[in-house]
């Protein structure tokens, strides 16, 4: 009786996780609706209420900023999730931790792609070139490649225990680059603007600041939604694999 009670207690987080994963459809769809509404409102706000910046910063193209910077923040957020889940997986491997680590890396790749597509288009107007080997751009590209490598290894090498441990280690080590990206502008200079700082930043208009905060809120919701969806996919994949293994062991037809 005592052993059964202890076992129930030990498996409680897993059962709660499974319950949450299975029964959270409504919350997920509400989140999806809220995120979509915020995206449309943000686009409306940026184009109709936010003033155009000075020509030296790209003029009208500066409006890319309100999605570009929040995308970079979303990449950091995904990277931190990948780091935390990978570290937790290395301490005690579970399917859930592996699923969150995978979701973090996949979302980090997506958001780094958003930054790397929007940034050069803005740079073409502001700097006259699409790309320059500026410290921030270079370090961000490095992080994008690290997360892309994790996704590639997971997709093409396999999903066994050694592979999971290997990508978890890269997930932990790869995150070291995130603070380097952030402080590269202050430490090594370069072309990249330093508008957002700890001392309040350089956005001189209230609407500009509001658009940026709205962008951060939208990207936070989008990141949570995508991380959730990708973690659920990874967890479903683990369940399918484990059931297929059980059926093969039992000599059942798949």
């Amino acid at each position, binding site marked *: 009786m005592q052993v059964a009670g202890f076992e129930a207690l030990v498996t409680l987080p897993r059962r709660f996780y499974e319950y949450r994963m299975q029964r959270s459809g409504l919350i997920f769809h509400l989140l999806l609706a809220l995120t979509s509404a915020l995206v449309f409102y943000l686009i409306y706000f940026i184009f109709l209420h936010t003033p155009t910046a000075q020509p030296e910063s*790209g003029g*009208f193209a500066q409006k*890319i900023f309100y999605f570009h910077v929040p995308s970079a923040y979303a990449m950091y957020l995904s990277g931190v999730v990948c780091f935390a889940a990978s570290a937790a997986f290395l301490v005690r491997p579970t399917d859930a931790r592996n699923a969150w680590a995978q979701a973090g890396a996949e979302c980090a790749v997506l958001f780094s792609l*958003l930054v790397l597509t929007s940034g050069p288009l803005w740079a073409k107007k502001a700097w006259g070139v699409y790309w320059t080997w500026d410290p921030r751009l270079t370090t961000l590209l490095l992080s994008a490649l690290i997360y892309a490598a994790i996704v590639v290894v997971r997709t093409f090498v396999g999903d066994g225990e050694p592979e999971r441990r290997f990508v978890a280690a890269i997930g932990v080590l790869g995150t070291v680059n995130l603070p380097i990206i952030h402080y590269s502008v202050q430490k090594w200079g370069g072309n990249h603007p330093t508008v957002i700082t700890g001392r309040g930043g350089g956005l001189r208009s209230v609407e500009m600041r509001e658009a940026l905060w709205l962008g951060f809120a939208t990207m936070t919701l989008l990141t949570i939604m*995508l991380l959730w969806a990708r973690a659920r996919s990874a967890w479903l994949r683990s369940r399918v694999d484990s059931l297929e293994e059980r059926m093969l062991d039992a000599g059942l037809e*798949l």
Partner: protein
Amino acid sequence: MQKPPDLRTSTSQPEARSSEFVAVEGGQPSTSAEALLVTAYILMWALVLVFVLLTWRRQQTLEARLGQLEKALSDAKQRAPD
């Protein structure tokens, strides 16, 4: 037999082929801010949309497969002797 026309004196030749570039007052830049902005927004949201669609399709496939496997497993359990 008729002789072919002399291309050096032919009137079909362009009168003034560009041999130099001269700046024009008030000329427009080739990459307008509007074009860059619209391209950036289209690319960004297309990427997000593709990612969401791929995730949704993957989940549908996995849920269907999971359902199949769970049904096969429960059928096998029912068939198995006690």
